[in-house]
């Protein structure tokens, strides 16, 4: 997959400039940077939601996204949310609900779920697409530490069973250290890639000591 953004502006203000990325099919790229730098804008460009930029995105394959808010259809049951948006079968939906630890949630409506549960459903929906490229926009924001850690472990499990190229937007270096195979730090005005770090081993093989060591270098 290739991402080339020569210029992205909001009115007169240029947000992103000269960003060129090549991401392999099993890579997990974390985009780090302070709030408002343009990380989510970059993700929206990759998702095809923002077309007002100079450059192009090619070979992304089938894309799925888990948004910052779960964005479930509130008038449909959890199972319908998976089947109607991704065309997966009810059986596949139930298997994914099992995988995200909510095997009995199929018939429930989204307003009966906690934020953490709704995020897990949103993740299940993204995997139900069988994506080649999975985009995650701050998937653990506003979760307490325990819920965030559980969901992070869940994401690693899901990626092991359903491999996909991952692009994760986060402002938390800890999430990048746990999930990514490559960490890009955006900075400057307009934003560009200021630092790029390839991490050798698979995220699943990292132990706590290695994660803590990585944290000091990101």
């Amino acid at each position, binding site marked *: 997959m290739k991402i080339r953004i020569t210029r992205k502006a909001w009115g007169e203000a240029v947000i992103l400039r000269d960003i060129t990325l090549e991401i392999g099919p099993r890579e997990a790229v974390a985009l780090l940077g302070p709030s408002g730098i343009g990380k989510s804008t970059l993700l929206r460009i990759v998702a095809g939601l923002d077309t007002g930029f100079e450059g192009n995105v090619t070979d992304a394959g089938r894309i799925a996204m888990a*948004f910052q808010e779960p964005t479930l*259809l509130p008038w449909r049951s959890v199972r319908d949310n998976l089947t109607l948006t991704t065309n997966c079968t009810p059986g596949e939906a139930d298997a994914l609900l099992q995988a995200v630890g909510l095997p009995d949630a199929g018939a429930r409506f989204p*307003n009966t779920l906690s934020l953490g549960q709704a995020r897990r459903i949103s993740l299940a929906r993204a995997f139900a697409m069988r994506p080649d490229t999975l985009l995650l926009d701050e998937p653990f924001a506003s979760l307490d530490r325990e819920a965030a850690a559980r969901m992070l472990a869940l994401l690693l499990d899901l990626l092991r069973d359903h491999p996909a190229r991952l692009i994760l937007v986060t402002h938390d270096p800890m999430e990048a250290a746990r999930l990514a195979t490559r960490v890009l730090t955006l900075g400057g005005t307009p934003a560009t890639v200021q630092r790029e770090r390839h991490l050798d081993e698979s995220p699943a093989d990292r132990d706590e000591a290695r994660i803590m060591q990585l944290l000091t270098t990101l």
Partner: protein
Amino acid sequence: MLAFVLLWAIVAVIAGSPNTLPAPWTVARLTLVETLSGELLFHLSATLARTIAAFVLAMGIGSAIGLWLGTDKRADAWGDPWLVGLLNLPALVTIVLCYIWIGLTEVAAIAAVAINKIPLVATQMREGARTLEPALRDMAHVFGMSRGARLRHVVLPQLAPHFAASGRTGIALIWKIVLVVEFLGRSNGVGFMIHQYFQLFDVARVLVYAISFVAVMLLVEMLILQPWQRHATRWRRP
């Protein structure tokens, strides 16, 4: 309801003028007579059929226009003055013009009623379309939902509360205009019968037809509109 009938009975007895204000039991007896003769049901069903036809037309066309104006700024800029103009067009003018231009036909009657209601539906649905959730639109785009699926599962459920509100106020307005249309140019229906008995100054029978149709509309509200609205908004209840 009982208190209203009781008050009506007391006022009727005090007034002592059955020609101007007949007592409830007189109206009840005549309702039975008209029902047994088949007249009441015949005219009620004629009015109900016109009401349903005009309702379906007005809701369909009004919703489509409202959705279009609410999601397309250029169309809204062009359509807004038209909408304001049509909203201020008196019902009577539309009815008279439809009868003159189309003729004293069923098509003219139903068209006149629908034209009166379409701008109101369009205005309410436009407000609904303006508040569509952009996050859900983005989600539908990323997940590649087809246009039909987006409309059915993402857009229309968001418009449902506006559609329900518009439908409930609409049905009340529509049947009243249907009565005027029948009064002016049809040979059956509740409006036509009220016209007949108005000329004879038979207030009791005017009340028989008016109250019967109000009862029918109350049943429609309780048996169809309210349960449908409850079903459409059941996801809001935890």
